[in-house]
């Protein structure tokens, strides 16, 4: 073997990773079914259909300890067993590929890089639960994923890996694509099914759960892309193989879209139980520009923050929930000391306000009122009483919303408030933003000792807020200043600072 030490596998970024879900991404041509078959593709389906009963498939998935990768972490095998237990000739399998969290692109990569593994996982689920039809609900904003998955379905049909009597077993299964029109709420399972049915994507109350009455009121198993991507590997290599990786109650690996203030942004797949420190410092290569790690946000608009003090936490479903965060679908945003936690909470809340479908009052009006409170706080007009109101409103929204979107919408606020109460108080009591982000709470000042009177700042100021004569210290008129920061960028002497 000739060694070059020049491949991805030779990097620190890769060393702690273990690729189960992403094993074919970056290896095979996603548009070639033959290449997928070359790396044991459809072997699991062949094995199950020719040598296992549906109940054995369910048991294998149960024994593996696989839990839903969409965020909730419900045991997949148990979910399948609920649908399998239903006595109904028509059942469905649905794949949730409506990945909408800001900054998350795990599912897109799997669909674009290895579409056949989703087809195989869904067919296995169909066999296990007694379903003969499946739908993949994928967002229309993923045109390449849609195209490759569409081609993969056609190729699988042409090979008879979808259709009638697959592997001569008598089992029929076919798949259809449905495109989401961009509503975040359609990632919620009941809203997603309502949308597939051709209606406006709004959630419906549970129970009845989809396993009893789901798509077209038939028993339905709905799983996320990453969950299905694990299935074939479990059937092929066995539950023990899968369960050998991970923690006591969270087995296997998890894909994260690592982003934010981190040196290596990208898609990483690590065993469950990898510590946050390992992800940030080793896989992520640390924080750029010598800054310090402040918190990691997981779970997107439904999730929460893990503060720097918890950096040694082992990442799994239960540990994250215990810390007021959640696994989520896998977005992980790293934040440094320049990130304002109130501002971050406001950012995610703005997203849920925009994306609330409006069906229930708690979410439609509650998130809007909560957003207004946060705006008041970041504008420097908040009071201590507002903080109490904010907390009460959060609980109200959580308790009264119809679906997961509303029930989890306050999480970013609650988790930042419980982890960084002093930062909220600084905004409200001292009228300061410690991270220097909230514009209303900042004042730009010129240090007369350092100012050389070069006039560069006065010339760049778009609103004429800076005055002074040449070679004399300049002054910023706080009443006119729009806090754009242009002067600070321009100053060569470091005379301008924000406080």
């Amino acid at each position, binding site marked *: 073997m000739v*060694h070059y030490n020049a*491949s991805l596998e*030779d990097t620190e970024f890769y060393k702690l990773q273990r690729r189960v879900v992403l094993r074919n991404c*970056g290896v095979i*041509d996603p548009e070639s079914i033959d290449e997928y078959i*070359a790396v044991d593709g459809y072997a699991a389906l062949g094995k199950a259909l020719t040598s296992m009963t549906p109940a054995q498939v369910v048991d294998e998935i149960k024994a593996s300890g696989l839990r839903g990768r969409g965020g909730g972490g419900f045991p997949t095998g148990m979910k399948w067993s609920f649908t399998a237990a239903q006595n109904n000739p028509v059942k469905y399998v649905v794949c949730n590929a409506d990945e909408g969290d800001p900054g998350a692109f795990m599912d897109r*990569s799997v669909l674009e890089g290895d579409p056949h593994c989703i087809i195989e996982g869904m067919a296995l689920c169909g066999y296990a639960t007694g379903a003969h039809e499946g739908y993949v609900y994928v967002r229309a904003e993923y045109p390449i994923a849609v195209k490759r998955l569409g081609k993969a379905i056609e190729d699988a049909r042409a090979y008879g890996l979808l259709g009638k009597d697959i592997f001569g077993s008598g089992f029929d299964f076919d798949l259809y694509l449905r495109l989401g029109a961009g509503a975040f709420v359609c990632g919620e399972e009941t809203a997603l099914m309502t949308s597939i049915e051709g209606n406006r994507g709004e959630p419906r109350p549970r129970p009845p759960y989809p396993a009893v009455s789901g798509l077209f009121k038939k028993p339905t198993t709905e799983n996320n892309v990453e969950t299905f991507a694990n299935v074939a590997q479990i059937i092929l290599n066995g539950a023990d193989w899968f369960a050998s990786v991970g923690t006591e109650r969270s087995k296997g690996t998890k894909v994260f879209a690592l982003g934010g203030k981190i040196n290596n942004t990208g898609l990483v797949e690590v065993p469950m139980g990898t510590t946050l420190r390992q992800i940030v410092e080793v896989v992520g290569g640390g924080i750029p520009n010598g800054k310090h790690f402040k918190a990691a946000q997981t779970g997107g608009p439904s999730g929460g923050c893990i503060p720097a003090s918890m950096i040694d936490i082992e990442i799994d479903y239960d540990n994250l929930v215990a810390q007021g965060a959640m696994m989520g679908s896998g977005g992980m945003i790293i934040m440094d000391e320049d990130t304002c936690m109130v501002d971050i909470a406001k950012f995610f809340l703005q997203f849920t306000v925009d994306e609330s479908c409006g069906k229930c009052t708690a979410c439609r009006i509650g998130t809007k009122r909560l957003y207004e409170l946060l705006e008041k706080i970041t504008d420097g007009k908040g009071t201590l009483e507002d903080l109490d109101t904010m907390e009460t409103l959060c609980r109200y929204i959580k308790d009264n919303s119809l679906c997961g979107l509303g029930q989890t919408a306050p999480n970013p606020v609650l988790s930042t408030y419980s982890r960084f109460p002093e930062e909220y108080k600084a905004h409200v009591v001292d009228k300061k933003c410690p991270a220097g982000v909230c514009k209303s709470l900042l004042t730009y000042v010129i240090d007369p000792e350092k100012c050389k009177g070069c006039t560069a700042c006065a010339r760049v100021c778009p609103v004429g807020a800076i005055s002074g004569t040449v070679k004399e210290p300049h002054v910023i008129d706080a009443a006119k200043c729009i806090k754009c920061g242009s002067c600070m960028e321009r100053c060569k002497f470091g005379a301008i600072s924000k406080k």
Partner: protein
Amino acid sequence: MKSLEELAAIKARMQDKVIMREGSGQIRVVVGMATCGIAAGARPVLDRFVEDVEKEGLADRVAVKQTGCIGICQYEPVVEVHEGGKDKVTYVKMTAEKVDEIVEKHIKGGQPVLEYTITHVGD
């Protein structure tokens, strides 16, 4: 597909095309063509590889393929060269110009252009 044998036959036919055997002399070049790669400019890179391989008459031993995302967003476009009996080489931040050099020195000459690889290119 009516039997496991059919599946096994396709696997047997395809395996050597995906996993390079030592001594086969075959080279597989994969270009990351997920959304991230395409956005960063992977298409001209893929096109140039196809052109160069054609032009240099290497088509019988060099296969140029597209693939999905390998996860290193900030290094896109990414190209990996697989050759039996040799370590895989990961080229990052690729351009069409770099392709010409890699085809000349690495694919034809057998010497990877190390300064373009992931372990040598900084951010």
